[in-house]
């Protein structure tokens, strides 16, 4: 698997992927729907799969002494590394944003624990829709990403809306990280669990679809 991951990062990774990680800095924009930062992770994964199609990445991988299932596993691990790296890079920017004396985010969730927590189900949704569709037909990268983008933007719209409607989200989660830390950490733990189990099951389904697919 290490060799396959080396292949993912040195041959398959699209050059925009590390650039998009830097977009975590958008969390210091005073007022912005910060969930959008995590949309760029999906965009990096999409570009990697798209350039993979143009560069016959799957054909190359199939010639290596690895199973089809392992090829899918490597791409999922690559995606999970990018997604968690996006959050990791975002943390210091969230701290900077919180230290700014300009009040909370006027257009959406504050940059903080809750935002990171609730971005995890969004990335699970991306993985489910994008990889769920992509591994049924690896040629249809664009269509898979279009579906995943719609799902993500719907999630963002609903999540931001609920942060204004549901009292727990408005009064507990969407607050500075000096407040309600235990509650936020519980939500974070639940979201990590959703992300880990959700992505794992999406991987299993994708691997099984890919095994059935003719290249």
């Amino acid at each position, binding site marked *: 698997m290490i*060799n396959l991951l*080396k*292949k993912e990062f*040195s*041959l398959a990774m699209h050059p925009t992927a590390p650039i998009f990680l830097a977009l975590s800095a958008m969390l210091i924009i005073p007022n912005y729907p910060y969930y959008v930062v995590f949309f760029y992770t999906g965009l990096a994964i999409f570009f990697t799969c798209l350039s993979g199609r143009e*560069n*016959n*990445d799957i*054909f*190359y991988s*199939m*010639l*290596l*002494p*690895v*199973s*089809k299932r392992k090829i899918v596993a490597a791409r999922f691990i690559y995606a999970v590394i990018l997604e968690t790296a996006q959050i990791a890079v975002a943390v210091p920017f969230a701290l900077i944003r919180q230290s700014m004396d300009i009040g909370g985010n006027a257009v959406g969730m504050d940059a903080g624990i809750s935002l990171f927590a609730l971005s995890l189900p969004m990335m699970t949704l991306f993985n489910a829709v994008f990889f769920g569709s992509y591994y049924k037909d690896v040629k249809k990268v664009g269509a898979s990403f279009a579906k995943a983008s719609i799902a993500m933007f719907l999630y963002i719209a609903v999540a931001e809306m609920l942060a204004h409607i549901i009292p727990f989200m408005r009064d507990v989660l969407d607050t500075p990280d000096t407040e309600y830390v235990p509650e936020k950490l519980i939500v974070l733990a639940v979201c990590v669990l959703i992300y880990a189990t959700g992505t794992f099951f999406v991987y299993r389904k994708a691997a099984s679809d890919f*095994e*059935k*697919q*003719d*290249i």
Partner: protein
Amino acid sequence: MSILEVCNLRKEYRSFLLDDVSFSLEEGKITGFIGRNGAGKSTTLKSLFGFVRPDGGSVEFFGKPFKSNEDEIKRRTGFLLGEVNYYAGKKISAITRVTKPFFSTWDDAAYEKYSKMFSLDENKKPSELSAGMKVKYSLALALSHGAELLILDEPTSGLDPFSRDELLEIFGDLCREGKTLLFSTHITSDLMRCADNIIYIKKGRIIYDGDMNAYTDGYRVVEFDEANELPHEKLIGARREKSGYSALIRAEDVDEKTQCRAATLEEIMLHIEREDKT
């Protein structure tokens, strides 16, 4: 033990059926896989290596089923589907560096030897290589991980006559080193030069699998002026030529009166495919 044994391979598409495909390869021989475009050559080859999932049949490499021995089989086999066109923008050295650790059998000395033999420039990218050089790079990779069997899908198509000749010479050398080669092509003159055996696929079915010379010896070409000059039931795929007609006839149907000459593989293919059309 056969180096590759394919039994009753079957793959059904909406408009094409690969049906009951069976053949085996003799070790240390070059086998040509022929058939017109769309006959099922690529589908068959892709089914061998798991690119296409067959609906039925079995594939055994080195006496072992592919599915349960995929890693070992891929180490011992080189599969070249056309020219190398993966990671066209990356340097060859980068692709080799990533490929190498996958193969416990990788031999640096062999890679150096073949790189030198094929005049490969490590700093070039696949996009900068000619079609012939791309095939040579793929061969260098396969031979460096100790491939005993090389499966090549149309390796000579798109090459100029000189590059084709050079590649065929390499195939001959590899065969003398004990490698087994299976390569598909519709350039039958290439096979006349280097193949020992042929497998002929037509409309998804194998119609011949065996010695190439025995196959070509089994037919003669008859040339005549008028279409009704010879008994039609014995002629195969009569076609109009620049002057007169030509047809194929089985060697056993040739009598003393019949004026005929030896048939090339291309002529046999042309007349057999023609026969089906008429």
